[in-house]
């Protein structure tokens, strides 16, 4: 059948399961948007290409499928860059399609020509430049395979306009394709498993470090079996939250810079760390030279470049986490580690005493309390999307995640502005799901143009906007480390309620703790997007905090308040 390149692209993407595309049109991608009309796909017009990339990311994280973002050449493509970098840092499978000027114009600085494959080379898992229509089918199949397999990540396909328009005789290429240099590991060798078992047998104070890999590999059940059989507590990274339920007695909650103090204490005192699909990011290790000094380390990881990268480990097990754990579990004996669990229990009790949740009502509205009200109202079962900053850490701490795939947040890249578009994408992954965006006034204002997209699409995203009129996390660092010199952190905003209403989005403002529940109920009962602005305490800090470059157990703790 005669088809043009743009139609071939759409045909191949639909065959990969694509039915939702986030994008923005432009000269060099027009044939692709034109071809979309012939296929059963829904195109969501974001208000900025960064929004399209984050929306594809949110869609991918919430659905487990590959998210797709489409943009034109030049500035359209460069606007995707922040979204692509966000996706690679958090291993999110997205495919970005960008238009490019005609092949014969490449290198000549034509209108809206930018070297997109060059720019995105270090922030994609792989990328392609297509100059003729006959390359498209093969490349699309490879791109989706690479994006979703192994350690997932973003793949970009830059397609010259002539290739989109070129008509060729097309038949879909069934069968295998060859990627001679791409072999993600699956099983780890038996020799390594045996060494791991020896360390597990010898351990008295083991801790599991559960990362994003647990959920990406779908290894929640295996993690639970492993932890239960060996009675080993589980600390989670930010992206690991939900790997085991927060209410599980073995859960230590989040580790790291703003992690639970007892989780960090346990890691520092541990004699065996079992790192499952995590990468020892500086935000979870603190000062490396003092990290878990007494612990042997086992690292189960699918990406070999992560092994020995930050922390040299004793037993690396390269493979898919679910597969490796399934191989390990039958080899395990049962252990109780009773003394160790008792010790951790004591550390936990000390934390409770310091918690802001133990404070008496002082009439002030704190973000933590607003988030806890949200948790109560949603029975801890919402899909939560966040921006980046203090509100993000409080969401991680106080929205206690019972289930996997319920927290969408920019971890590795820490991309402010991720929230609104990612929540939009997440809603498209499952329109029946209950999506709450917990955002800060700084993050929100970075991508607030996407409110228009929410409204145009009728996307039922409920927004809890924590407004403290500061870029709160930077302000907190200024308070602690720069003698309270608040340079460039006070931030004003519009009247957020009016802003929402100008978009046709119902909105409420909350200024007192006792108003929180009513407002949340209002949001739940009102169909479509709703915004609740919480005017929270301006100078509250996130505790505990491990200062950058400090040992993990040297935390700034919340002062005890009677």
């Amino acid at each position, binding site marked *: 059948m005669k088809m043009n390149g743009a139609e071939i692209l759409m045909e191949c993407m639909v065959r990969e399961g694509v039915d939702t595309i986030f994008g923005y049109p432009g000269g060099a991608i027009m044939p692709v948007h034109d071809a979309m009309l012939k296929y059963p796909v829904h195109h969501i017009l974001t208000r900025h290409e960064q929004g399209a990339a984050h929306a594809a990311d949110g869609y991918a994280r919430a659905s487990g499928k590959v998210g797709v973002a489409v943009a034109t050449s030049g500035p359209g493509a460069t606007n995707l860059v922040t979204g692509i970098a966000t996706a690679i840092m958090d291993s999110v499978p997205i495919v970005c399609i960008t238009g490019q000027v005609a092949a014969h114009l490449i290198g000549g600085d034509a209108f809206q020509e930018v070297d997109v*494959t060059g720019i995105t080379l*270090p922030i994609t898992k792989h990328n392609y430049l297509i100059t003729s229509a006959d390359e498209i089918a093969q490349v699309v199949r490879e791109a989706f395979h690479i994006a979703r397999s192994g350690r997932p990540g973003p793949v970009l396909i830059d397609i010259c306009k002539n290739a989109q328009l070129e008509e060729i005789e097309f038949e879909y290429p069934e069968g295998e394709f060859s990627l*001679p*240099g*791409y072999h993600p590991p699956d099983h780890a060798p038996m020799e390594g498993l045996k060494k791991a078992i020896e360390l597990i047998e010898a351990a008295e104070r083991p801790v599991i470090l559960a990362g994003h890999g647990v959920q990406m590999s779908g290894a929640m059940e295996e993690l639970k079996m492993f932890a239960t059989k060996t009675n080993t507590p589980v600390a989670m990274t930010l992206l690991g939250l939900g790997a085991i339920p927060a209410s599980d007695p073995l859960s230590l909650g989040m580790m790291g810079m703003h992690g639970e103090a007892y989780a960090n204490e346990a890691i520092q005192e541990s004699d065996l760390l079992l790192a499952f699909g995590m990468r020892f990011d500086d935000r979870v290790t603190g000062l490396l030279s003092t990290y878990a000094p007494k612990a042997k380390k086992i690292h189960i990881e699918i*990406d070999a470049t992560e*092994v*020995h*990268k930050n922390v040299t480990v004793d037993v690396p097990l*390269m493979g898919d986490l679910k597969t490796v754990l399934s191989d390990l579990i039958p080899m395990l004996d049962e252990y109780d580690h009773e003394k160790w669990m008792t010790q951790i229990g004591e550390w936990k009790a000390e934390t409770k005493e310091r918690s802001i949740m133990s404070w008496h009502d002082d009439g002030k509205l704190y973000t933590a309390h607003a988030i806890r009200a949200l948790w109560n109202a949603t029975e801890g079962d919402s899909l939560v999307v966040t921006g980046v900053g203090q509100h993000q850490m409080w969401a991680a701490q106080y929205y206690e995640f019972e289930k996997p795939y319920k927290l969408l947040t920019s971890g590795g890249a820490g991309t402010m502005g991720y929230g609104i578009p990612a929540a939009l994408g997440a809603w498209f992954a499952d329109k029946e799901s209950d999506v709450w965006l917990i955002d800060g006034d700084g993050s929100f204002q970075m991508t607030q143009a996407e409110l228009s997209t929410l409204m145009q699409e009728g996307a039922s995203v409920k927004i809890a906007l924590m407004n403290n009129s500061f870029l709160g996390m930077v302000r907190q660092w200024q308070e602690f480390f720069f003698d309270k010199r608040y340079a460039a952190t006070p931030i004003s905003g519009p009247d957020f309620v009016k802003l929402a209403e100008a978009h046709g989005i119902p909105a409420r403002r909350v200024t007192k703790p006792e108003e929180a529940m009513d407002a949340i109920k209002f949001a739940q009962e009102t169909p479509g997007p709703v915004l609740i602005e919480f005017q929270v305490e301006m100078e509250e800090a996130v505790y505990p905090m491990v200062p950058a470059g400090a040992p993990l157990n040297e935390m700034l703790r919340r002062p005890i308040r009677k």
Partner: protein
Amino acid sequence: MENTIVALVEDKPGVLNRVASLFRRRNFNIKSLNVGRTETENVSRMTIVVDSEGVDARKVEANLYKLVNVIDVQDVTNQPAVHRDLALVKVSAKPEQRGEVASLASIFRGKIVDVAPDSVIVEITGTEDKIESLIELLRPLGILEMVRTGNVAMMRGDMSGKRYAPSQQ
């Protein structure tokens, strides 16, 4: 400290850029890099000499291997391999000095491949050490220009180097 790594890569546009970009991105230092065709169509071969003073060579290998277009990575450092570098050295030489240059070159099994009124070009092939030695001897005469290919390496017989495999960390 340096490591010599042999990588087989798909012969596609931009692959050299991917490798170079990787070294820059991960802050690895390349001492020399040589690319050329191989016995197999569509497969190129890179010999990369990397400064492994401050970086674990395994990291370099793991990152190379992770590139989709890289098919095979071997470390041939301290392995039974043949290492060769080729240099062209233009030496300032009046007619009466040509004899001296020629005899120095021949000691190292080099040869003179071009003669001009005031200079000659010496071609020398060998290990880096051997080439360095000749260069030191030629330097007092005045080296006008020099070019080197960088190291290329091949394992002897049917041996292979320490082949990188993700499972063998």
